[in-house]
């Protein structure tokens, strides 16, 4: 029973972080049909923001809020630097520029901050351990689950109720038609990037909370995670991304228990082979996205 509780908490906490990451990737992909390779760097940006504010004496929540804001800012900057100049040219071009932007951010961190790992300030609650039904778990895990619920609720409300959300959903199916109704393309795209930055920023607090420090290359892993989750769940489906995130967490956590350690080290190879198979067999993922659409 204790083990089960622990397992469930692990899956939910990990899955929550994965789901939010995946959501941030899908919201941009849904509208532009383009993968943002610089997405993982938003985590890095948030991390370095925390590091730079260490010692300012601000309450941690304020620092966290600034970190999330910076993540949003850089999310929008991705659009301006990497996407907008080449958006109309070709898919390949945008993929390369987003990859290039990711390199710029990483190397800017190397150059202007430090190539070394930097410790980030964390609140005391992050190093608190609680016991639930005999299972010992970091309080951070429960906070991750809570944050996931809040973010998903907020996100659902935004997409269902607000005119911006409706416009974004519309743009995901038929961008040209949405524009012909007066929905400004650039606003929608920038909003998508901002939301993607918001999600990455919130995840980063928990992601980095586990590690306690930030390095320039920190973004690769979350990017890969978001990739797998979205491909499993459906590159263009919002519920799919959430499902994919939780499913991936379930698979990962179960493999941790089942796979012998000699095979476990090849886990990434397995999951990415799986990604390739899904793309071949069911390019839309497990949950089909909205009806077809085209790029701007």
């Amino acid at each position, binding site marked *: 029973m204790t083990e089960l509780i622990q397992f469930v908490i692990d899956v939910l906490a990990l899955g929550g972080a994965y789901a939010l990451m995946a959501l941030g990737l899908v919201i941009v992909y849904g509208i532009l049909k383009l993968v943002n390779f610089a997405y993982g760097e938003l985590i890095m940006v948030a991390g370095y923001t925390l590091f730079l504010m260490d010692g300012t004496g601000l309450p941690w929540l304020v620092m966290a809020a600034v970190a999330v804001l910076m993540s949003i800012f850089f999310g929008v900057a991705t659009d301006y630097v990497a996407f907008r100049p080449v958006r109309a040219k070709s898919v390949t071009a945008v993929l390369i520029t987003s990859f290039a932007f990711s390199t710029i951010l990483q190397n800017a961190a190397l150059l202007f901050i430090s190539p*070394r790992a930097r410790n980030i300030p964390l609140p005391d609650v992050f190093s608190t351990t609680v016991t639930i039904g005999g299972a010992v778990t970091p309080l951070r895990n429960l906070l991750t689950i809570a944050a996931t619920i809040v973010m998903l609720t907020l996100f659902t409300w935004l997409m269902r109720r607000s005119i911006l959300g409706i416009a974004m959903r519309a743009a995901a199916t038929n961008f040209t038609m949405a524009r012909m109704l007066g929905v400004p393309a650039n606003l929608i795209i920038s909003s998508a990037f901002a939301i993607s930055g918001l999600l990455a920023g919130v995840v980063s607090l928990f992601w980095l909370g586990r*590690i*306690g420090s930030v390095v320039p290359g920190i973004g690769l892993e979350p990017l890969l995670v978001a990739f797998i989750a979205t491909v499993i769940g459906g590159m263009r489906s919002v519920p799919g991304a959430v499902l994919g995130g939780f499913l991936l967490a379930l698979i990962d956590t179960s493999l941790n228990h089942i796979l012998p*350690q000699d095979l476990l080290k090849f886990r990434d190879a397995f999951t990415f082979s799986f990604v390739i198979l899904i793309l071949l067999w069911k390019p839309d993922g497990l949950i089909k996205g909205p009806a077809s659409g085209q790029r701007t």
Partner: protein
Amino acid sequence: MKNSLLTIALLSGLSTATASTAIAEDLLIGGTLSLTGVQAPLDEPGFRGAQVAVKYLNDNGGLLGRQVVFSNIDGKSDPVTVGNAAVQLFDRGAELMVAPCDFDFGGPAGREAQSSGIVGISTCASDPLYSSWSLGDKQFTLSMWNTTMGATAAEYAYNEREWKTAYVVTDQFIAYTKSLSKYFVEHFDAIGGEILLEDTYTNGDNDFSAQISRLQALGQKPDVIFISSYGTDVGVIVRALREIGIDSPVIGGDAYDDPALHENLGETFGNDIYFVTHTWMGPEAGPEMPTFLQLYEEMYGVEPDTSFVATGWDTIMLMAKAVEIAGTTDGTAVAAALEENTFELLTGSLGYSDAASGHAPDKAAMLVELKGGQPVPLGWRLPANPPAP
């Protein structure tokens, strides 16, 4: 097109020209220490320590009557960059080579030094692969080997603390992390301890949940946890363990001797952690330490915070002593001087076996405890009968 080619040609031509005039009198010591990347926490303090030593030598008349110039090109924690940097330094006339820590990164510099026929010394490579066997008869490391480091940890755990059972995590990252565990396990087993589980981890994974589930499946709490990892990952692993309530003492090697790690663990997680390292940066270490501490503070205005600064100073001073004995920087002569003498250094007394037996360093280790995020020295140790490499 032609133009850019010419530019390269001119640039490289120029740099060699200026370099060759500059070294007419000076004695150039090349360095490929990594100032960036995962290796930086070990190499960068060494770089600082080496600069103190160079200044000290020059203030006291130089070496063989020549001023010493220490030129370091960032190896960027990448074996390929280290190799390229070493070649560049030999082109500029380097007569001695300071190689970065550890076999994976220092190896390429050692090999280039060997092929140029000069002596290279790594500041803190502790894997027994860093030997004359694999690199050649003019290559040395300042550090004790992992045989000593692993055995010291094992003896402290079993003999001094009576921890009978151990759980071992080995980062597969580099030769150092692998062999440190290997010798700990060998020695712990040999003196009567029991290894409950040997698990692996790969640097940069940032995810320790798989290992934790295997540890929990044991159903038994180990008396001690031996973690051989590197850089921030040590912090990731310790955090992960402590967060789920596993409070067994943790023990490891010199990679723990990193103030950033201590800060990362902080008061909450930085307890009951022990590590084997090169020396202690305080008067407790030995009679020469206060002099160094003073020189260091004069140069940098702060106290040194890791023993890796001492390895940098020691590497340069060891080279200087050997060169003075040999009377030349010629590789064969300096290597012979290193093999035949015993040197008193900040990191303890050091002697080498001959080239045929690998240039095995004969050296003691310093044991340090982490209490509330602050290191506390426990004293010098020399294992009774360390395993053979």
